[in-house]
Protein backbone atom coordinates (compact mmCIF):
# COMPACT_ATOMS: atom_id res chain seq x y z
CA UNK A 1 0.00 0.00 0.00
CA UNK A 2 2.09 2.87 -1.34
CA UNK A 3 0.56 6.04 0.10
CA UNK A 4 3.07 8.35 -1.59
CA UNK A 5 4.18 7.61 -5.14
CA UNK A 6 6.80 9.06 -7.42
CA UNK A 7 6.16 7.46 -10.77
CA UNK A 8 9.22 8.81 -12.56
CA UNK A 9 12.40 7.07 -11.41
CA UNK A 10 14.60 9.58 -13.22
CA UNK A 11 14.60 12.98 -14.91
CA UNK A 12 17.26 14.59 -17.07
CA UNK A 13 17.31 18.36 -17.61
CA UNK A 14 19.62 20.89 -19.23
CA UNK A 15 21.25 23.49 -17.02
CA UNK A 16 19.19 26.67 -16.86
CA UNK A 17 15.92 24.95 -17.73
CA UNK A 18 13.08 24.04 -15.39
CA UNK A 19 13.02 20.74 -13.51
CA UNK A 20 9.57 19.45 -12.54
CA UNK A 21 9.39 16.56 -10.11
CA UNK A 22 6.01 14.96 -9.45
CA UNK A 23 4.41 13.08 -6.61
CA UNK A 24 0.97 11.56 -6.00
CA UNK A 25 -0.61 10.59 -2.72
CA UNK A 26 -3.64 8.60 -1.64
CA UNK A 27 -4.33 9.71 1.94
CA UNK A 28 -5.90 13.16 2.31
CA UNK A 29 -5.28 13.30 6.05
CA UNK A 30 -1.70 14.49 5.85
CA UNK A 31 -0.80 17.83 7.45
CA UNK A 32 2.30 18.68 5.45
CA UNK A 33 4.07 17.60 2.32
CA UNK A 34 7.81 17.82 2.04
CA UNK A 35 10.60 17.45 -0.42
CA UNK A 36 13.93 16.01 0.64
CA UNK A 37 17.12 15.89 -1.40
CA UNK A 38 19.73 13.16 -1.16
CA UNK A 39 23.29 13.01 -2.45
CA UNK A 40 25.12 9.67 -2.68
CA UNK A 41 26.53 8.39 0.63
CA UNK A 42 24.69 11.11 2.56
CA UNK A 43 21.41 11.18 4.42
CA UNK A 44 18.45 13.10 2.96
CA UNK A 45 18.27 16.81 3.69
CA UNK A 46 15.10 18.82 4.05
CA UNK A 47 14.44 21.09 1.09
CA UNK A 48 10.98 22.64 1.23
CA UNK A 49 7.57 22.04 2.77
CA UNK A 50 3.96 22.94 2.09
CA UNK A 51 1.04 22.89 4.48
CA UNK A 52 -1.99 20.90 3.36
CA UNK A 53 -4.05 24.09 3.51
CA UNK A 54 -1.84 25.89 1.01
CA UNK A 55 -1.45 25.39 -2.72
CA UNK A 56 1.97 26.95 -3.26
CA UNK A 57 5.17 27.62 -1.37
CA UNK A 58 8.21 29.28 -2.87
CA UNK A 59 11.78 29.41 -1.58
CA UNK A 60 14.32 30.85 -3.96
CA UNK A 61 14.67 28.61 -6.99
CA UNK A 62 12.36 26.00 -5.47
CA UNK A 63 8.56 26.09 -5.61
CA UNK A 64 6.22 23.38 -4.44
CA UNK A 65 2.66 23.18 -5.75
CA UNK A 66 -0.13 21.20 -4.11
CA UNK A 67 -3.25 20.18 -6.01
CA UNK A 68 -5.53 18.68 -3.40
CA UNK A 69 -8.33 17.71 -5.76
CA UNK A 70 -5.87 15.68 -7.83
CA UNK A 71 -3.89 14.54 -4.76
CA UNK A 72 -0.77 15.65 -6.54
CA UNK A 73 2.21 17.77 -5.65
CA UNK A 74 5.14 18.92 -7.69
CA UNK A 75 8.51 20.55 -7.13
CA UNK A 76 9.74 23.10 -9.64
CA UNK A 77 13.39 24.07 -9.76
CA UNK A 78 14.13 27.15 -11.84
CA UNK A 79 16.77 27.56 -13.13
CA UNK A 80 18.23 24.11 -12.71
CA UNK A 81 21.92 23.85 -11.85
CA UNK A 82 24.33 20.89 -12.08
CA UNK A 83 24.61 20.94 -8.28
CA UNK A 84 20.90 20.11 -8.09
CA UNK A 85 21.67 16.63 -9.41
CA UNK A 86 20.54 14.29 -6.64
CA UNK A 87 17.71 11.97 -5.63
CA UNK A 88 14.56 13.86 -4.65
CA UNK A 89 12.03 12.31 -2.29
CA UNK A 90 8.58 13.63 -1.63
CA UNK A 91 7.12 12.81 1.74
CA UNK A 92 3.92 13.29 3.66
CA UNK A 93 3.72 14.14 7.32
CA UNK A 94 0.93 13.64 9.83
CA UNK A 95 1.32 15.57 13.05
CA UNK A 96 0.92 13.73 16.36
CA UNK A 97 -2.63 13.66 17.60
CA UNK A 98 -3.62 15.96 20.44
CA UNK A 99 -4.22 12.98 22.71
CA UNK A 100 -0.70 11.73 22.07
CA UNK A 101 -1.90 8.36 20.86
CA UNK A 102 -0.36 8.61 17.42
CA UNK A 103 3.01 9.75 16.30
CA UNK A 104 4.24 12.16 13.67
CA UNK A 105 6.26 10.42 10.99
CA UNK A 106 7.26 10.84 7.39
CA UNK A 107 6.00 8.61 4.61
CA UNK A 108 8.35 8.76 1.66
CA UNK A 109 7.95 8.15 -2.05
CA UNK A 110 10.43 5.99 -3.95
CA UNK A 111 12.52 8.93 -5.12
CA UNK A 112 13.36 10.49 -8.48
CA UNK A 113 16.94 10.78 -9.70
CA UNK A 114 17.45 14.25 -11.16
CA UNK A 115 20.41 14.82 -13.46
CA UNK A 116 21.14 18.37 -14.60
CA UNK A 117 23.52 18.50 -17.55
CA UNK A 118 25.87 21.48 -17.99
Amino acid at each position, binding site marked *: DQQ*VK*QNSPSLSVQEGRISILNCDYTNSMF*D*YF*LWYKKYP*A*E*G*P*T*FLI*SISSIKDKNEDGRFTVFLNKSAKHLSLHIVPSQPGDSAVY*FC*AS*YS*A*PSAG*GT*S*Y*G*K*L*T*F*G*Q*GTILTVHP
Partner: protein
Amino acid sequence: GAGVSQSPSNKVTEKGKDVELRCDPISGHTALYWYRQSLGQGLEFLIYFQGNSAPDKSGLPSDRFSAERTGGSVSTLTIQRTQQEDSAVYLCASSLVGDRAYEQYFGPGTRLTVT
Protein backbone atom coordinates in the same frame (compact mmCIF):
# COMPACT_ATOMS: atom_id res chain seq x y z
CA GLY B 1 26.96 22.15 15.54
CA ALA B 2 27.34 18.40 15.10
CA GLY B 3 24.79 16.61 12.99
CA VAL B 4 23.35 13.14 13.36
CA SER B 5 26.07 10.51 13.37
CA GLN B 6 25.74 6.80 12.75
CA SER B 7 28.10 3.89 13.17
CA PRO B 8 29.34 1.80 11.57
CA SER B 9 29.12 3.34 8.11
CA ASN B 10 29.29 -0.11 6.54
CA LYS B 11 28.57 -3.53 7.97
CA VAL B 12 28.94 -6.88 6.25
CA THR B 13 27.61 -9.83 8.18
CA GLU B 14 26.79 -13.46 7.60
CA LYS B 15 23.23 -14.63 7.46
CA GLY B 16 22.00 -15.64 10.91
CA LYS B 17 24.28 -13.29 12.86
CA ASP B 18 23.04 -10.42 15.01
CA VAL B 19 23.99 -6.80 14.28
CA GLU B 20 23.76 -3.55 16.21
CA LEU B 21 23.56 -0.16 14.55
CA ARG B 22 24.14 3.01 16.50
CA CYS B 23 22.73 6.52 16.16
CA ASP B 24 23.79 9.72 17.93
CA PRO B 25 21.12 12.37 17.37
CA ILE B 26 21.54 16.11 17.39
CA SER B 27 21.79 17.40 20.94
CA GLY B 28 18.45 18.72 22.12
CA HIS B 29 16.36 16.79 19.61
CA THR B 30 13.84 14.77 21.57
CA ALA B 31 12.46 12.88 18.57
CA LEU B 32 14.47 10.11 16.94
CA TYR B 33 13.52 7.98 13.96
CA TRP B 34 14.90 4.92 12.19
CA TYR B 35 14.26 4.33 8.49
CA ARG B 36 15.70 1.94 5.97
CA GLN B 37 16.17 2.18 2.24
CA SER B 38 16.35 -1.04 0.30
CA LEU B 39 17.74 -1.09 -3.23
CA GLY B 40 15.44 0.82 -5.58
CA GLN B 41 12.98 1.63 -2.81
CA GLY B 42 12.01 4.73 -0.91
CA LEU B 43 12.68 5.28 2.75
CA GLU B 44 10.68 2.91 4.91
CA PHE B 45 9.79 3.99 8.45
CA LEU B 46 10.85 1.56 11.15
CA ILE B 47 10.49 3.10 14.61
CA TYR B 48 10.07 6.46 16.34
CA PHE B 49 11.11 7.59 19.82
CA GLN B 50 9.79 10.79 21.40
CA GLY B 51 10.99 11.78 24.84
CA ASN B 52 9.87 9.34 27.51
CA SER B 53 6.83 8.16 25.58
CA ALA B 54 6.47 4.58 24.44
CA PRO B 55 8.06 4.24 21.00
CA ASP B 56 6.03 3.80 17.84
CA LYS B 57 7.20 0.40 16.61
CA SER B 58 4.61 0.07 13.88
CA GLY B 59 7.18 0.00 11.07
CA LEU B 60 9.37 -2.81 12.36
CA PRO B 61 9.12 -5.60 9.75
CA SER B 62 9.49 -8.53 12.15
CA ASP B 63 10.23 -9.40 15.77
CA ARG B 64 13.87 -9.86 14.81
CA PHE B 65 14.11 -6.07 14.81
CA SER B 66 14.27 -4.06 18.03
CA ALA B 67 15.52 -0.66 19.08
CA GLU B 68 16.18 1.19 22.25
CA ARG B 69 17.07 4.70 23.18
CA THR B 70 19.05 5.18 26.34
CA GLY B 71 18.88 8.37 28.37
CA GLY B 72 16.83 10.07 25.69
CA SER B 73 19.85 10.35 23.42
CA VAL B 74 21.78 7.54 21.74
CA SER B 75 19.76 4.84 20.02
CA THR B 76 20.66 1.31 18.98
CA LEU B 77 18.84 -0.70 16.34
CA THR B 78 19.37 -4.44 16.72
CA ILE B 79 18.63 -7.03 14.06
CA GLN B 80 18.75 -10.62 15.26
CA ARG B 81 19.37 -13.63 13.02
CA THR B 82 19.93 -11.43 9.98
CA GLN B 83 18.50 -12.46 6.63
CA GLN B 84 19.58 -11.42 3.14
CA GLU B 85 16.44 -9.31 2.73
CA ASP B 86 17.65 -7.17 5.65
CA SER B 87 20.37 -5.78 3.38
CA ALA B 88 19.68 -2.06 3.08
CA VAL B 89 20.88 1.36 4.16
CA TYR B 90 19.62 2.08 7.66
CA LEU B 91 19.08 5.78 8.30
CA CYS B 92 18.58 7.53 11.58
CA ALA B 93 17.02 10.98 11.90
CA SER B 94 16.24 13.35 14.73
CA SER B 95 14.05 16.39 15.07
CA LEU B 96 12.56 18.86 17.46
CA VAL B 97 8.93 18.40 18.33
CA GLY B 98 6.20 20.90 17.60
CA ASP B 99 5.25 22.74 14.44
CA ARG B 100 8.36 21.86 12.46
CA ALA B 101 8.74 18.27 13.57
CA TYR B 102 8.56 17.28 9.90
CA GLU B 103 12.01 18.80 9.40
CA GLN B 104 14.07 15.78 10.22
CA TYR B 105 17.85 15.72 10.17
CA PHE B 106 19.32 12.53 8.83
CA GLY B 107 22.59 10.81 9.49
CA PRO B 108 24.68 9.38 6.64
CA GLY B 109 23.30 5.90 7.21
CA THR B 110 24.72 2.44 7.81
CA ARG B 111 24.94 0.21 4.76
CA LEU B 112 24.19 -3.34 5.90
CA THR B 113 25.05 -6.25 3.65
CA VAL B 114 23.97 -9.74 4.69
CA THR B 115 25.83 -12.47 2.82
